[in-house]
């Protein structure tokens, strides 16, 4: 599996309620991803809810695109990334 950072823009903002509905919406995304062998690790969302930076594990950039299509999510940019943290070299 390769790790990818997927940037998305939601012109009207992305609002996922913090309740059962929101949980269900997220689980639906997880399910849609699973069809393509793609795993959503987590996301960072800008304060205006218009831009998200989503970390994904997946077999290929094409799989990330197919999963986004299944889930009706936009894709601006896919970047392959590696983990680096302050203690990486210790």
């Amino acid at each position, binding site marked *: 599996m*390769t790790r*990818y950072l997927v940037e998305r*823009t*939601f*012109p*009207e903002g*992305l*609002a*996922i*309620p913090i*309740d059962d*509905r*929101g949980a*269900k*919406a997220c689980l*639906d995304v997880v399910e849609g991803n699973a069809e393509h062998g793609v795993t959503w690790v987590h996301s960072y969302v800008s304060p205006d809810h218009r831009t998200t930076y989503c970390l994904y594990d997946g077999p*290929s*950039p*094409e799989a990330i*695109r*197919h999963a986004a*299509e299944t*889930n*009706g*999510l*936009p894709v*601006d*940019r*896919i*970047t*392959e990334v590696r983990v680096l943290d302050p203690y990486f070299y210790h």
Partner: protein
Amino acid sequence: MLLERDELLAVLRESAPGTMVLIGGEAGIGKTTLVQAHCDTLPSDVPVRFGFCDALGTPRALGPLHDIARTMPEVAGRLSAGADRHDVFTTFLDQLRPGPSVTVVEDAQWADEGTLDLLLYLGRRIGDLPAVVLVTYRSEEVGRDHPLRRVLGDLATARPVRRIQVPALSQAAVTSLAEPLGLDTARLYALTGGNPFFVTEVLSTPADDLPVTVRDAVLSRADRLGSAARAVLDIVSLVPDRAEMSLVDPEALEPCLESGLLLLEDGMVRFRHELARRAVETDVSAVRRSLLHGRVLDHLAGLQGVDPARLSHHAEASGDRTAVLRYAPIAARLAARAGAHREAAAQYARAVRHCAAAQVQEQAELWEHLAHECDSSGALSDGIAAAQRAIELWQSIGNTERQGAVMAQCSLMLWKTAQNAAARAMAAAAAELLEAGPPGRALAQVHAAQARLLMLAREMPAAIEVGSRAVELAERLGDTQTLGRALNAVGTAHFLTDPDRAVELLEAGLDASAQVGDDAGTAAAMVNLGSGAGEIRRYEVADRWLGEAVAWSGQRDLDSSRIYALAWQARSDFEQGRWAAASQRVEEVIAGAPQHVPAQIIAYTVLGRLRARRGDPDVSGPLATAWRLAQQTGDLQRLWPAVAARAEAEWMSGGGEPLDAGITSRVGEAAQLGEDLAAEVRATYELALRLRHPWAVGELGCWLGVELPDFAAAPYRTGEGWRELGCPFEAALVLAAGDDPERQVAGLQELQQLGARAAADLVARQLRREGLVRLPRGPRPTTRENPAGLTDRETEVLALVAQQLRNTEIGARLHISAKTVDHHVSAVLGKLGVSTRQEAGRWFRAFSE
């Protein structure tokens, strides 16, 4: 009583019509018993047909279908008429169409190539039939390289195909069987591993006589039947699958049947279990074994309608060379006609093992046939070795005609293994040899092979020159098969200079190949019509023929033609801006045919270019693979797209200047490429220049910034005509590279629409530098604003649902019927993944906050 099989029986019971069930398990685990138990529960009017694959070293071609055809006169008729495989398969399918039936293919681990193809053919089409097909196989014998593995793999994704595994019995089940007999159940379980056959075999021996090994158990039981019965068992053990009853002493057969070691079916005798057969077979001494095989051979040879594959098996086992040379070639011809080329090759291989004492002429013929069948079944290195032996033998008796014909075939095999230089040398030598004598069929074949090799290397004028000689000669001699192949080479060679003529010639070649039933030649003509037109960007012709080629080869399971056409479809989709479709086809090619080098080169090239233009990661991986494979072939048609793709990727990552590099000729304004890559582009350009390939010269010349020759394709020379060709990416970049700001912005928008983010970013950066600040920010398809993918109408309906209005009220507001509203509401619930209107309403309020 069947222990611990209820779940599996339920699976079989619930197999709807239109299902194939693959039943795996170790030998003796009870696959056949399971299938029998299931079939016994079926209504009596459902026909059940059994086909057996046999353990012959070289199995009968389509053996199981011959068994099945006993109650299918139509199929039997086709088989005995020697109809071609496709005809036999479609007849069989038609016979399954009228009503429910069960077809059982037993022991598929021994299936011949024809039967494997049949299973694949059935598995892909069973969904439309009212039939159920059960296939048993020994999973432990199907290793990684086993031919059945390919079929299992190919059917893995077919919806109507299910797989079940028959597990060993649990210790509890063994105990319940053994305990009443007062046996040591733990020891019995350890000894048998829960294998029902071993268990029952061991249990049916006297209680005080528990054998150390099951093999001993079988043998001691056999010996107790007396020496006459043991002689019967010995004979039957040497006849794989089933033996004619007339082979054995009927009186001595009686105790074997009573003991349950043997079964009688339709006048044929077989071991109740294969393990018992093996136990007996291995107990027969080697000397006696070959004598007994001789007896079996003599007996079978005197019967009517015995499959020659069986005779050939016993002939070899008895060491009877004359008989091998009599039966193996007959069995081989039958197998070849049934499309089982691997079995045909195995029969010829058997024959050549025993032909040292035969006439040289006969030896040469056998080696030649062996080479041909190896070629047809993809065993290329064996095929080349056999061809070389045949060439020597024909030469030794001075038969230049036959020697030359084998050399022609050998040259094409050499090309398929990427030994291009050796291939051309061989074809040239054959031509020299034959041109010394009067022109005949062999010379036509040699010229056709030469033309093909030249065409593949894009030496078009030479291909046309030699190919036309082959066409003329084949026509004069009435050799339609060679004519079809020759027209294919000549036609394809015309694409660069006279595309209309190319199509005309290829269509004539297609007709010729179809007329003589040359399936591979017919598929090749369709593929070349498609790929040849694609290479010069005539997409209408290309798309039509590639579609035909995929469908036609798919129906006949000509997988290699299908996958090559599919790869070309991906390239055509990509060049015409249908990127989602291109990406899916690329995936299928890469996963589906890793060994098909030309298709892989195309697929990896398209994948790399697609990622580069979209701005997706890992562009270099696929392009490096494509380039490595292309270099192996050394052919312009592979090198050019692969190296151009690498140039495009490097240009893009280096800032993308000039914007239309690689699309429009700008003398002296080469794209900045690394030294090594630039040298590779130049070397490929020079090859293209020498071969006068308009499109390769155009594209590579643009990357190098050289002045293009007049014969280079017009769009590269002028920057015009891309839109008319149907190439939106190139058209958009040409717009963006112009100096009219309005047109530049339009080009940018087109790139955004295509999803060419990387290219769009390059253009946007350049435009900003030039002072254009108000740039479009990218397309906004409605689904982007709406994560659930609702249409505008559905969103309207949902808004009103959220206000807790009823369908009639919503209908009144939107001026549509309540029924239509209901339809929209179901669609909305489905897309949101919720089950009630209340939930949908809450979702809407949450989202519109």
